[in-house]
């Protein structure tokens, strides 16, 4: 029975809950049990009961499950970067061990208002810095397809929980690929909406001008349901806009009349794309044509510089955003006789190596004498990348690329080479730099370089700013045609 429940999509489950066919608490309990057996280290905190899942204010218990609420009774795994009042929130860092925020993030609040329940807090790379989840202060989350491999990152716990059937859906954050890349590596759907679509209030900041909250789900429709509940202008976030017209349920079945550009810099000419990934990508492009879509090569000349710009801008913003973790008002403190010593010891103990590396990088890039050479130039590269996209979108409705150059890699494989790890984001970094939406859908499976069991491959669709609804619709048509199944994947 409970196995069957875990097979339901969010759309199916909420339908049954609304019609009274399925009791919300029964559904929740099925997932609570599954989550309790978490062998992937996907969740850092789990709700013991419904009471805990229904956070303050917006409690929706059994009899209150309101048929009108679109996500009534749906358990959600929430990346541990979202503040949840009274519930531990660590951002994967030891510096926030035991921290319980005094307030709840807008994204979670909106999900709650739509009837969803917080099932657990998902593991992640510390402060969302990483592409493998190995930078978590609480141990890595594992890929449900192969527990010797990474689930991707930074929203690795969210992706692993959804792919590993510990949660029907999850939310994460994407700064340079942190939703799309783990979604690709775990064989699920992950979307980074347009910058500003979902409020960042209560989402622990990594790189504020890039961070965006988005859904991870088993299919495009479920992702749309989550985004629909979360998007909207929030007076607590000056940079939030919501999406005009909202998000409808995707229904498209063909791609007639749509045009797709394949940027050569992120596809045919890109280095480091595995053969298997390339094959799946080309098959998917062919499928777009079969569905009536028009495909042609295009260019994004500055996209190859995305990683460089990103690894200046994001660490620079992060170095300021993480300055508040200082042992004064909350979180870890290492006692010392003198103030500076207290700061330095606290931060040395509380932050992991990757976070330190990025703080150093960002502090250096902003320091006196280097600002123009690094930060200033990176901001201009950002302008050029956005212009490249605008130009491409004059001709094409969407741009498509592989999501990740490789399938899931082995634990430890890239931990000693930060730059190699950074290049995992090669295809996903340009979009947040331009603020545009992008989605990764599972497109097939492929062997890793050097052989082995087949692992999922993601296909990325990016559109102009605020094309989120149309993009979901398009992804839905393609998803149908691909018919990706988890056969051979996690049970």
């Amino acid at each position: 029975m409970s196995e069957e429940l875990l097979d339901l999509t969010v759309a199916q489950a909420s339908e049954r809950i609304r019609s009274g066919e399925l009791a919300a608490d029964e559904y929740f309990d099925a997932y609570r049990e599954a989550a309790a057996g978490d062998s992937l280290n996907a969740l850092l905190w789990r709700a013991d009961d419904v009471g805990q899942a229904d956070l303050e204010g917006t409690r929706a218990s059994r009899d209150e499950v309101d048929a009108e609420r679109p996500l009534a009774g749906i358990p959600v795994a929430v990346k541990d970067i979202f503040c949840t009042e009274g519930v531990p929130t660590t951002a994967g860092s030891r510096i926030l061990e035991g921290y319980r925020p005094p307030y709840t993030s807008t994204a979670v609040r909106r999900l709650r208002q739509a009837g969803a329940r917080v099932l657990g807090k998902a593991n992640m790379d510390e402060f969302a810095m990483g592409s493998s989840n190995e930078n978590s202060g609480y141990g890595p989350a594992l890929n449900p397809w192969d527990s010797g491999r990474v689930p991707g990152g930074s929203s690795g716990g969210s992706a692993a929980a959804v792919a590993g059937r510990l949660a029907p859906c999850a939310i994460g954050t994407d700064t340079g690929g942190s939703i799309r890349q783990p979604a690709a590596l775990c064989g699920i759907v992950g979307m980074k909406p347009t910058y500003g679509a979902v409020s960042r209030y209560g989402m622990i900041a990594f790189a504020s001008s890039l961070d965006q909250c988005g859904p991870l789900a088993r299919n495009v429709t479920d992702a749309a349901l989550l985004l629909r509940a979360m998007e909207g202008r929030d007076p607590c976030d000056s940079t939030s806009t919501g999406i005009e017209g909202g998000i409808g349920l995707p229904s498209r079945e063909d791609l007639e009349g749509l045009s797709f550009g394949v940027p050569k810099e992120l596809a045919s000419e890109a280095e480091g794309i595995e053969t298997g990934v390339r094959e799946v990508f080309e098959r998917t492009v062919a499928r777009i044509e079969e569905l009536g879509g028009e495909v042609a090569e295009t260019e994004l000349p500055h996209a190859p510089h995305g990683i460089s710009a990103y690894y200046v801008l994001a660490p620079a913003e992060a170095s300021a955003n993480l300055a508040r973790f200082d042992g004064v008002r909350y979180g870890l403190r290492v006692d010392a006789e003198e103030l500076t010593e207290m700061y330095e010891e606290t931060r040395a103990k509380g932050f992991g190596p990757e976070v330190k590396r990025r703080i150093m990088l960002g502090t250096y890039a902003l320091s006196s004498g280097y600002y123009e050479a690094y930060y200033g130039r990176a901001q201009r590269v950002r302008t050029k990348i956005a212009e490249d996209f605008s130009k491409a979108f004059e001709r094409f409705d969407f741009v498509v690329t592989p999501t990740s150059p490789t399938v899931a890699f082995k634990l430890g494989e890239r931990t000693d080479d930060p730059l190699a790890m950074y290049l995992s984001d090669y295809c996903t970094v340009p979009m947040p730099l331009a603020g545009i939406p992008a989605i990764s859908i599972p497109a097939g499976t492929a062997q890793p370089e050097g052989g082995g069991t087949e692992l999922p491959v993601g296909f990325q669709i990016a559109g102009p700013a605020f094309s989120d609804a149309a993009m979901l619709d398009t992804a839905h048509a393609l998803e149908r045609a691909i018919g990706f199944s988890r056969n051979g994947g996690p049970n």
Partner: protein
Amino acid sequence: MSEFEAVIGLEIHVQLSTRTKMFCGCEPSFGDEPNTHTCPVCLGHPGSLPTTNEQAIRYALMIAAALECEVPPRSIFHRKQYFYPDQAKNYQISQYDEPLAVNGRLGDVRIERAHLEEDTAKMIHVGESGRIHGSGASLVDFNRAGTPLVEIVTEPDLRSAQQVRDWAQLLRTTIRQLGVSDVNMEEGSLRVDANVSIRPAGSDRLGTKTELKNMNSFRFLERGIEAELERQRGLVEGGERVVQDTLHFHPEDGSLTPLRSKEYAHDYRYFPEPDLVPVVPTEEMLRGARESLPELPAHRRERYLNEIGLNEEAATMLAFQSEYGEYFERAVAAGDGTPAKSIANWVTGELVATLRQAGAEEDPLASKATPEAVAALAGLVEAKTISHGAGKQVLTRLVEEGGDPAEIVEREGLAQISDTSELEKIVDRAIEAETEAAEQVRQGNEKAIGRLVGAVMKETKGRADGGAVTRLIKERL
């Protein structure tokens, strides 16, 4: 040794009296229990975001208008980074290379810029009571953290400590009239730091400057700068060099001590605040700021000089000392046709003197002599109902016990003697009594007439009109 010239520029922080903080909905508070006015935003909790207080922008635009600044089409916020416990985020949201206002002027001092930023928390050192035995500790109170500040930076246009004091008072009056701040130095809603250097008179190169802090009254401001100028002159005359430093003023003994130079030079690592969007003052906002300006001191002074015809001293006093200015304006409004100039003479002359005698010259509006009464008094003198001397007596009564001048005149029998025959008799008696003076007048010594007039005045208790008395004496002699 050649003469030195002082070169002084000011950095002024003005706390705005908005209802909420700059970037969150907490009410700013002063004097409440510590940390009772905080929230996740002003405590810098993870995930919290700032939101800009519209009223702070409007108040800052009013200050910009009052300082005749240009307002660029767009301004943005930056993060100014340095670690200190009085900053919840370890950066201050401030404005940097795109400030709200630039290139202004107040009086003869140019304003370089005026920008918005957030105030810090308050820290109290509590001595050896830290968690680690024997080490010092401080307590941080975030009630003040995030209060909106306008920082005003002047060009180095000031040349003496006295000028700084006068100008700072003019600035305070100007801003107080806008109603956007309490501008109280003692309470810290107005903080003036000074960049001080000296150079040989006539030179146009700039000397090494020091920054003076913690002068929390106009008197201390003047004293601190005076002391620093003295110190710098001493150094240079002794063949030593001025070292760039920040000096802390101690009000107890007027001394200045260098703040231990920070271990590491400041490197604020400014970059644009990604959590906030640009401020683009709209036509409506700019118009609102202009229209809400009351008459500002500099304009008021011009008007007093040119339209009312006051002398320089009276015009400046009434324009720059807002309490007297308001007193005067209210008296003129109540004056019912009494010439403003004559009211001004009473206010700046006899009223100031009488209040000073009573030890109450700081705030005339608080005295028992109301502006309406002083206007009526000026009217009585102007109409020659009473003499000027009698008017002074009436004013003394007004300051002592308040009341209506006409009643006082009636009660005390101060009305001018208008009966010429009665006055003639008194004059004749005076000429008889003061034979020596009368003889001198006859021989052409005009000055001696004063003694005779004085005698008449004494006799009449000031109720006689001085002009009429003089005329009568001359007729007779």
